[in-house]
């Protein structure tokens, strides 16, 4: 069925490397301070993607969300997974490393659909989550407790099953969505004056 749809959409659109992701938004809690996050700060990141136009790009389905963090982050802690849109018995699983045909991705949430592959905890050997829904998830991450000017990049990349699953069309590009691109705030407030009592 999917291959039939693939041929059909290929004939209609003839698109290559089209935009496959939906509308992406995010929240950061606490919001980024003007000078960046201080060491030790725990930040909750919530990501939302509305829609998946990749359905119309080589019939790619959504395979997962790769999270890319700068070296200034540590203690990544996943929270609730995205909801299964139209993936049958499939489940969203958290993988710290995901070996795909396009290379290693992760950590992040990936869809183990069990369609055209086993439902075995390996998201890379089957197809993704079909449909055109809203996917959202949150995670917590902590700024390293170190006085170094480390990179605090946060990116989420929504990937198609043609790249990270067992689907064969790789016309959906994997474009990182940058949530934050700051550095650590290492400044401390000036001490009050010394007094002699």
């Amino acid at each position: 069925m999917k291959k039939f749809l693939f041929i059909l959409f290929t004939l209609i659109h003839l698109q290559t490397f089209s935009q496959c992701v939906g509308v992406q938004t995010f929240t950061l809690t606490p919001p980024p301070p003007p000078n960046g996050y201080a060491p030790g700060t725990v930040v909750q990141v919530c990501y939302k993607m509305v829609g998946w136009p990749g359905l119309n790009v080589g019939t790619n389905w959504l395979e997962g969300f790769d999270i890319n963090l700068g070296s200034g982050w540590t203690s990544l802690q996943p929270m609730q997974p995205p909801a299964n849109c139209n993936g049958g018995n499939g489940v969203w699983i958290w993988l710290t490393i995901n070996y795909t045909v396009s290379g290693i991705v992760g950590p992040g949430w990936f869809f183990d659909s069990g369609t055209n592959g086993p439902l075995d905890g390996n998201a890379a050997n089957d197809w993704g989550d079909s449909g055109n829904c809203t996917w959202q998830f949150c995670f917590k991450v902590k700024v390293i407790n170190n006085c170094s000017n480390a990179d605090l990049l946060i990116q989420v990349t929504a990937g198609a099953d043609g790249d990270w699953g067992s689907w064969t069309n790789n016309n959906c590009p994997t474009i990182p969505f940058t949530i934050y691109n700051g550095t650590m705030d290492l400044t401390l407030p000036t001490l009050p004056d010394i007094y002699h009592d």
Partner: protein
Amino acid sequence: MIKKLIYLLLLPLNLMAQLVTTNPDTVCYQSLIPSNYEVALDPTLTYVWMVQPPAVIVSGQGTNHVLVDWSSFPTGLIINAISVQGYNSAGCNTPAKFLNVFIYNEVVSFTQAQDVCEDDDCITLVGMPPNGVWSGVGVQNNMFCPTISGVGNFNLIYTYSNAGCSFINTMFINVIPIPNLSPIQHD
């Protein structure tokens, strides 16, 4: 309106509540009492204090207040005599805060009094700098009264106090007994 009025009335009190030390801070020369220095506490910080040698931090290193012994320092102004920095758990540090210290000394002297007889009138004691205080046996209102002290040798102490410091010097005075003639005899 009333709220603003109350605020304005209380404003001077709030300003007075702030702890301020004049820079340079004055420390008494050769004082054996350590000086207590402090910055307002930020519980997220560990404090690292430094003093210029030969001053010594007696206690409190790592906290927001330290006791410093300046007794080995000679008289004069010490630039950046004491400093403090705060470090957070990540090892980041605040800019240093500095305080200059002036080691204050005052040379105290006096005009040596002559020996007096036990029945002499009170004599005025003179010390320098002026406005100090005399104390000791026979001293009243910065005068020495041999009729009060009686006969003997006495240590009279002149104490000059200024800027929280006291400086002393001691004068010795001798009270001589009145000679007694033996009765006139007709031989």
